[in-house]
């Protein structure tokens, strides 16, 4: 009987925690709507994502199809002009968005996973486990993510999968720091003690009580993280250590337009403008959400 009741209470408790997480999302949509930065950022992301997802079905040229119109300026048939091989720049920018958004999102999802698991473990268990993990977190946090990603991409060899791996293992430390701090403070709270008294095991406490309390800052970080990941991916591709041609990628398009900058500036500038707008969109969303969800986090990012 007591066991049934303990199980029931625990389920009730975790249901309420889930409700807490749900509340965060409700907060985001109601309060976010009133914040200019969130609205602008979200709109930009939505438009770019839609264009990227729909690009195979849009009435545009294929990004790898060569046409006889070499290095043509913007016109009604080629909105962003064509590059040195006669490929439609507009279509390549849209297909490049698919690559950039996929790489960035996947990389951030993976670093979120690594970071959450590492941070939760370190912060919740404390002691020797914390000492080792916190040291590793600090090491990765100290180094500029771009430099680490460059090193890993160089070591792994350039391919789409390797870029995702390189960014994931370079970027997780921010999430881990955040989770560790939250876990350290939440584990002392009364409801965690209550849950433990009811017989919940460590794993359960970590994922049903500690984690939902950190959802708001994690969302903010993830949004800014996607912006950073897009920058890192395009920088790697620009340096030749990232996405390899013929896969359309913004960084590589900017690089290949460099020799023709004088006579055909559109080859570099259009991918650059879209890249800037996209990064700006994610940054705006992140900054806006931070203001909306928790004004105390203002100092989190320098």
């Amino acid at each position: 009987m007591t066991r049934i009741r303990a199980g029931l209470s625990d389920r009730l408790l975790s249901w309420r925690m889930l409700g807490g997480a749900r509340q965060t999302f409700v907060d985001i949509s109601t309060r976010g709507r009133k914040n200019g930065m969130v609205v602008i950022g979200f709109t930009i992301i939505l438009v770019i994502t839609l264009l990227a997802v729909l690009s195979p079905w849009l009435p545009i040229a294929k990004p790898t199809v060569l046409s006889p119109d070499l290095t043509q300026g913007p016109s009604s048939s080629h909105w962003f002009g064509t590059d040195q091989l006669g490929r439609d720049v507009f279509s390549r920018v849209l297909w490049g968005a698919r690559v950039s958004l996929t790489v960035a999102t996947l990389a951030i999802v993976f670093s979120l996973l690594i970071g959450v698991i590492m941070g939760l473990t370190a912060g919740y268990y404390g002691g020797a486990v914390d000492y080792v993990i916190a040291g590793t977190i600090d090491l990765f946090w100290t180094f500029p993510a771009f430099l680490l990603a460059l090193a890993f991409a160089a070591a792994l060899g350039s391919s789409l999968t390797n870029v995702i791996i390189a960014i994931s293992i370079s970027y997780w430390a921010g999430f881990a720091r955040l989770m560790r701090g939250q876990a350290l403070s939440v584990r002392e709270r009364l409801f965690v003690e209550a849950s433990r008294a009811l017989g919940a095991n460590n794993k359960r406490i970590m994922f049903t009580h500690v984690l939902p309390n950190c959802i708001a800052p994690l969302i903010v970080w993830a949004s800014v993280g996607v912006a950073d990941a897009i920058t890192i991916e395009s920088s790697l591709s620009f340096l030749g250590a990232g996405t390899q041609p013929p896969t359309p990628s913004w960084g590589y398009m900017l690089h290949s337009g460099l020799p023709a900058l004088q006579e055909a500036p559109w080859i570099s500038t259009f991918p650059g403008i879209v890249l800037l707008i996209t990064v700006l969109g994610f940054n705006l969303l992140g900054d806006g959400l931070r203001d909306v969800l928790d004004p105390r986090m203002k100092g989190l990012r320098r």
Partner: protein
Amino acid sequence: MADLISYIIRKVILAIPVIVLATLIVFLMLYLTGDPVQQLRSPRDSPQDIQDIREKYGFDQPIIVQYGRFLVNLLHGDFGSSVAQGTTGTSVSSLIVQKLPLTLELMAIGLTISYSLGIPLGVFSALRQNSWKDRSVMVFTLVAYAMPSFWLGILLMLVFSVYLHVLPTEGTVGGLKSIILPALTLGLGNAALTTRMMRSSMLEVARQDYITQLRSRGLRERDVIFKHAMKNAILPVITVIGLDIGWFVGGAVIVETVFSWPGIGMLITDSITGSDFPTVQGCILVLAFFVILGNLTADILYAFADPRVRLG
């Protein structure tokens, strides 16, 4: 003062394991793809050549012995030798010594630009909080921060070299003129961060009682701001100067490649495209060392500015 010295010694000792870990990561990078010989051989090598390379670099020995040897070599300043086409056999350390001054020069000027732009702009913005001037500065910082440095570099190149013909596009041939664009590209993103920090720090200080007290005593507004408020507001901005080195080290790699500035950053890019792995390892270690040094500087400056930190 004694507590400050003991704090500094403590921080220096704590930096040692970080450096060791950095060497371990750089060492293990060779093994990420499996057989490290594949990174070092040229495509034309016969199986016998590959065996020779394996023995020459000691890859036939246990990994811990290899790491030990790697560390001992590093302590002697030996980063191995280049395997790239043009520079085969040249020691990596001599390549680095040759390129490092150019990178340091670029970073120093970039740092100067970012602070001499960011601090006044931040103060200006804070003094006119919520006016259209403040808002335009904030929009500028948002855009400058989001702008990837290679794209900013291309844009500056397009405007100043291609259209206005006032500055050289690339290389070091133009003397002092050729460093302006790369340094500006490197400094502008960080200037945006500095502006935002300076603005929020200034707003924070301006709210405090001693400022109100100075105003009520009838001090001129100019003196209140520049003699009293600035002194405290600038501290948090100055203390992070060390942390900015991390940003600059990463940015230098890209900016040097865009402008063909022959420093460490371009050496890394060339080595990656030329599969010259020992050089990549050496350069990354050197850059990592600068990042660690920068963080150490930040810690020390912070303790210098805020005595409470020393006791913690």
